[in-house]
């Protein structure tokens, strides 16, 4: 099927009234949780997941994806006005966004970030349309060994491209793999790590794991903490938002560079928007003629990272839709949602469910246009939301989390699981262990094991099979390269010096 035909089919799906409605709900909820500090897209998607059981799978995915990219738009608002990132990925926007607000240029900053977000997304969606079908076609030739290698690459990339300790990140991937083994072994029916607990026979629920590690942990970290001081903005007038011709010129190239960096980082399996915005900021600062203005309200300093984080969330759909390997923890939960709806993400998706694939992609266009409306003319509404004491929200979120995990199996056991992972997630966050790799390991672990065992059966137990097939050899080589980069101290030192602030 060629692209034009796909676009037509996709528009038919994405422009039905119910798809439009769920897209609108998704992006509104996304902006809402993005604007509010303390609840991220991941918690919101995990919460909405049980609500989508009764929807048509395409509509469900359109809505969940809308939450994901909508949150990237909203995240910058709190960064600019409160100096507090609305989502973890908008942390870098604080560096120059808050100084801009202090100079009374908050409306301008908000307008610019909305435009950047739109350009970044547009750039990446075009890439998704071009590359996902190509990669999927290529991936149809993959054998078990190739799949093992590409999943391994995703896990390694996710844990080595973080800013903290590589041992901690790799350790957490492996810990995630271990959590993924809990339950019944598919090949033999053996119960593993269930310790006689009947509820664990099916393994941990992904919703409970994600909501615990991210939602509950986030609440524990924020509850009882003093609230941030909001920069007074007064009434936001459209006239104050528009950049001057000179300012347009300043932001054009950083936005495009940010989009390119974000698309590339996002398309790598396992690396998400946090690292993309950080890299875009670092690059912009390095090539700028006025690096001293960064951190004092440089427009380039918000343009590049905002374009990058939006580009990366859209590009994250390339590996997810074409290979079935999530590009990021949030997409991993989205993938979990697809599996719950009986759809196997992977190279066959485009051929078997073309209306879903193209419908989802066309809904990205619809969603981004809606977001532009939500974030420029209607921005006043979101700003008001920030003045509501958000500590009133914590008990609500906690109740929704409890109900959300309960609704998956109608079982109180999952509420205990979510609490356990919440405490664990908080302790990990305190001691510098990243939670994202745990989730990726958990989701990819069963796939990794299955392909490993299949490859071993096919090759009669020869481990060299992973280096004999050219496809898998390339992926294994890349994995080794990532691991080697961790242990070359010079490279890491340079990276961490350039990156002023950790974000994930």
């Amino acid at each position, binding site marked *: 099927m060629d692209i034009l035909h796909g676009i037509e089919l996709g528009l038919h799906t994405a422009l039905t009234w119910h798809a439009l409605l769920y897209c609108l709900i998704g992006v509104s909820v996304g902006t809402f949780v993005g604007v509010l500090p303390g609840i991220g897209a991941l918690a919101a998607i995990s919460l909405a997941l*049980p*609500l989508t*059981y*009764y929807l048509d799978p395409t509509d469900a995915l359109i809505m969940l994806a809308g939450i994901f990219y909508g949150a990237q738009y909203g995240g910058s608002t709190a960064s600019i006005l409160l100096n507090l990132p609305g989502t973890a990925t908008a942390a870098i926007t604080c560096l120059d966004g808050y100084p801009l607000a202090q100079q009374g240029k908050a409306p301008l900053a908000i307008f610019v970030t909305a435009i950047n977000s739109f350009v970044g997304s547009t750039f990446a969606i075009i890439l998704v349309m071009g590359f996902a079908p190509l990669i999927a076609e290529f991936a149809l030739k993959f054998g078990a060994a190739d799949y093992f290698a590409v999943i391994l690459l995703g896990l390694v990339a996710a844990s080595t491209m973080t800013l903290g*300790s590589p*041992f*901690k990140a*790799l*350790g957490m991937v*492996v*810990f995630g*793999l*271990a959590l993924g*083994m809990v339950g019944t*072994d598919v*090949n*033999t029916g*053996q119960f*593993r*790590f269930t310790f006689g607990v009947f509820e664990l026979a099916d393994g941990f629920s992904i919703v409970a794991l994600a909501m615990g590690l991210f939602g*509950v942990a986030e*609440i*524990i*970290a924020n*509850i*009882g903490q003093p609230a941030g001081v909001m920069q007074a903005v007064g009434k936001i007038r459209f006239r104050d938002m528009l950049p001057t011709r000179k300012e347009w010129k300043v932001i054009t190239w950083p936005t495009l560079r940010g989009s390119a960096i974000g698309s590339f980082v996002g398309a790598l399996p396992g690396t998400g928007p946090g690292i993309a915005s950080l890299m875009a900021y670092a690059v912009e600062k390095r090539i700028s003629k006025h690096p001293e203005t960064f951190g004092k309200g440089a427009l380039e300093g918000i343009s590049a990272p905002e374009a990058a984080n939006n580009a990366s969330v859209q590009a994250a759909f390339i590996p997810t839709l074409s290979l079935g390997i999530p590009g990021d923890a949030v997409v991993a939960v989205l993938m979990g949602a697809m599996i719950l709806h009986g759809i196997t993400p992977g190279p066959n998706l485009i051929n078997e469910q073309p209306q879903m694939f193209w419908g989802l992609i066309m809904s990205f266009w619809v969603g981004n246009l809606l977001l532009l409306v939500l974030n420029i003319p209607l921005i006043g509404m979101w700003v008001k939301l920030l003045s509501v*004491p958000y*500590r*009133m929200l*914590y*008990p*609500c979120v*906690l*109740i*929704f989390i*409890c*109900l959300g995990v*309960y*609704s998956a199996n*109608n079982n*109180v056991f999952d*509420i*205990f699981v*979510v*609490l356990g992972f*919440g*405490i664990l997630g*908080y302790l990990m966050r*305190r001691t*510098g*262990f990243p939670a994202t790799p745990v989730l990726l390991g958990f989701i990819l672990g069963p796939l990794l*094991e299955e392909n*490993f*065992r299949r490859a*071993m*059966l096919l090759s*009669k*137990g*020869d*481990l060299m099979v992973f280096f004999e097939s050219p496809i898998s050899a390339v992926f294994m080589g890349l994995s080794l390269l990532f691991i080697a980069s961790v242990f070359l101290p010079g490279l890491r030192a340079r990276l961490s010096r350039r990156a002023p602030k950790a974000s994930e």
Partner: protein
Amino acid sequence: MNRHLISHYLPGAIVVAAGLAIALVAGTYPLGSLLRPGPGFFPMVVAVLLALLGLGVLGEAFAARRAAAPPQQPFPWRAVLCTCAAVLAFAFSVERIGFIPAACLLIAITAFAEPQRSWPRLAIVALFIAVFGSIVFIWGLGLPLNTFGAS
């Protein structure tokens, strides 16, 4: 060994211990061979990797032993305990006394995590949850819970 040293090495030690514990349990499942890996094979590999990476974390901690420890906020016992108590109270009571009373219980307990409380404000939150939660989850999604009373 003083308290600082313990908390400095504890995370790495826990990772190593977790790896060893998983290895112990994995050893009770059939390992199989490379030709036909059994259900214990992959867990054993994972356990050994985890323990090794834990050693790496310990090594890093050792290398950074002289570096000034970043100022660590005091452990928020209140937030952790209140969240636990609230969630546990909700979990144990929701099927016995109904959704709305259990939700009120959770809201009241979490309120003690904050330095000060405003009960009228919490009443608004409770009202919102009672209406919204009942409509979406019990009426809309048909969860087997009652708004009041045992289910």
